[in-house]
């Protein structure tokens, strides 16, 4: 069974215990056998995968590769990849073969990683369950009648079911952290600006960040090392000195102060989720960590602020889909205006249309100050809350989601309910901070629970350190679901 971490794949390849082609074939075989159970992957091109693997083997022979050369990876369908269908799980782009490659993907290709395929997502990254995908639902490998989370549900499910050692996701309001939590894997949303957004289809430009998803914090750190780069073609890309995000993995946690926001306690979080997190907190205490209470007073207000700002940015970003230069074009229309509206109404799913409508409204004449500007001011307050909290602690700890993964079809009909379940993740995107989700056990129903670590800007190495120490002293991250991974 392909139960290897990214680090194990790297070691096996570096030590020539397996070739890149053999490893790729093993994963392709597992995907062929098991993907239909969960629909994690939506696009595969085995020929291209094996071509990349052959090239990786040459580099491994020559010794000209990196630690990631030959290591397989899956990409969320949001990243442009030249020659691959880049659909964002939407009918609007279902015919779009990307003519160029996203910087983050190119960085990993340059490092020699091998593309296994593209994973399912909520349409245009709008959703928390991967149920809004044009390519069908993805099932949670732990319990097939439950969602994997979203919007990076396909990537999370693929890693959990061992159909890939690692995957890329994107996170605008929790779309890496929440599916990682629901699928029992580790995922990071980096500090805004660390990873280039060039070639990543835009949802909300001041929130979106690509990030690594894998079985362990160490794996995520190794991946992040190659993902991060200054990119001239992304005007929000930060020019920083290169760092090794794995450099502090083994630092002892003695003396670290962890803050627990009082607004997160008794906030509608399921008892089993709270209990699992409490066990992890005890583990940290044993390592000499101090726990303090902190406050994030504007936590609840982050929900309306987030939805006003992201829908406004989305309505602008999605205005490019007009059937003129690429993507879906309606078959019948009598004039240009009708071409636009039919193309968009036929090409976009319901959730996307709803968010475009909301965004259009909050930006329209007469409402800009009351909604958009107000939300931007709330954004400042949320960011200030975190800075005040970081005066009291080194890192903030809390849940990722109020419950474990819900059943398929359960809250798609109540958008307000869906939005409320994002409460622990969205304020992080408002502030632009880095945050990591790691597994801390299973509920009685056998569903994974995740815990979130939120750091101040540019403290990814510390987040990986804390998570790694937890993973050295526990085995939650080693658990493999049985139903989505049937062995023959």
């Amino acid at each position, binding site marked *: 069974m392909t139960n290897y971490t990214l680090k194990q794949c790297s070691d096996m390849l570096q030590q020539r215990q397996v070739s890149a082609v053999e490893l790729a074939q093993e994963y392709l075989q597992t995907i062929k056998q098991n993907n239909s159970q969960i629909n994690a992957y939506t696009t595969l091109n085995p020929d291209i995968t094996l071509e990349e693997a052959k090239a990786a083997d040459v580099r491994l022979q020559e010794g000209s590769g990196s630690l990631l050369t030959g290591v397989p990876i899956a990409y969320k369908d949001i990243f442009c990849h030249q020659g691959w269908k880049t659909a964002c799980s939407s009918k609007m782009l279902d015919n779009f073969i990307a*003519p160029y490659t996203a910087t983050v993907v190119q960085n990993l290709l340059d490092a020699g990683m091998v593309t296994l395929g593209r994973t399912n997502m909520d349409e245009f990254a709008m959703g928390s369950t991967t149920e809004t995908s044009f390519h069908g639902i993805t099932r949670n490998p732990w319990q097939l009648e439950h969602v994997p989370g979203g919007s990076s549900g396909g990537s999370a499910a693929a890693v959990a079911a061992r159909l890939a050692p690692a995957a890329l996701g994107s996170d605008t309001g929790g779309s890496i952290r929440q599916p990682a939590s629901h699928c029992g894997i580790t995922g990071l949303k980096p500090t805004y600006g660390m990873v280039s957004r060039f070639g990543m289809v835009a949802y909300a430009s001041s929130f979106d960040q690509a990030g690594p998803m894998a079985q362990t914090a160490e794996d995520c750190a190794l991946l992040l090392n190659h993902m991060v780069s200054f990119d001239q073609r992304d005007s929000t890309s930060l020019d920083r000195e290169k760092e090794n995000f794995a450099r502090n993995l083994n630092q002892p946690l003695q003396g670290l102060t962890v803050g627990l926001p009082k607004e997160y306690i008794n906030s509608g979080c399921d008892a089993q989720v709270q209990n699992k997190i409490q066990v992890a907190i005890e583990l940290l205490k044993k390592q000499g960590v101090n726990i303090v209470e902190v406050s994030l007073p504007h936590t609840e207000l982050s929900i309306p602020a987030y939805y006003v700002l992201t829908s406004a940015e989305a309505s602008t970003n999605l205005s490019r889909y007009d059937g003129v230069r690429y993507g879906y074009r309606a078959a019948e229309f009598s004039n240009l205006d009708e071409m636009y509206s039919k193309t968009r109404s036929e090409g976009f799913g319901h959730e996307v249309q*709803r968010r475009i409508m909301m965004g259009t409204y909050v930006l329209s004449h007469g409402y800009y100050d009351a909604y958009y500007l107000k939300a931007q001011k709330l*954004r400042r307050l949320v960011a200030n809350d975190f800075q005040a909290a970081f005066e009291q602690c080194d890192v903030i700890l809390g849940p990722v989601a109020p419950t474990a993964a819900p059943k398929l079809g359960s809250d798609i009909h109540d958008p307000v309910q869906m939005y409320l379940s994002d409460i622990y993740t969205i304020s992080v995107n408002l502030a632009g901070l880095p945050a990591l989700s790691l597994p801390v056990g299973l509920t009685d129903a056998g569903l994974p629970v995740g815990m979130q670590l939120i750091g101040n800007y540019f403290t990814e190495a510390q987040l990986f350190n804390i998570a790694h120490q937890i993973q050295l002293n526990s085995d939650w991250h080693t658990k493999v679901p049985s139903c989505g991974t049937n062995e023959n």
Partner: protein
Amino acid sequence: MALTLSDVEKIARLARLQLSEEEQYHVLEELNGIFALVEKMQQVDTDGIEPMAHPHEVALRLREDVVTETDQSHLYQQCAPQVENRLYLVPKVIE
């Protein structure tokens, strides 16, 4: 602050979306539900608070005024619905 059906029609027009009457009612209900959440924002005093458009205090980078991109129209137009002589074809705009 409840939206009306005519608000929904106007917004759809701005967003170049065509919704059936049934869909309009559905969207009206959904938007009003979400706006109840949004109303909570008004309860907070934000006088003197600087709006935050972006997580970092960075200004837009400038670069040298030299040509760096090459003509890739052939590559980029391969995915176009209708193209002729490097022009994108659409229905007549001016009557």
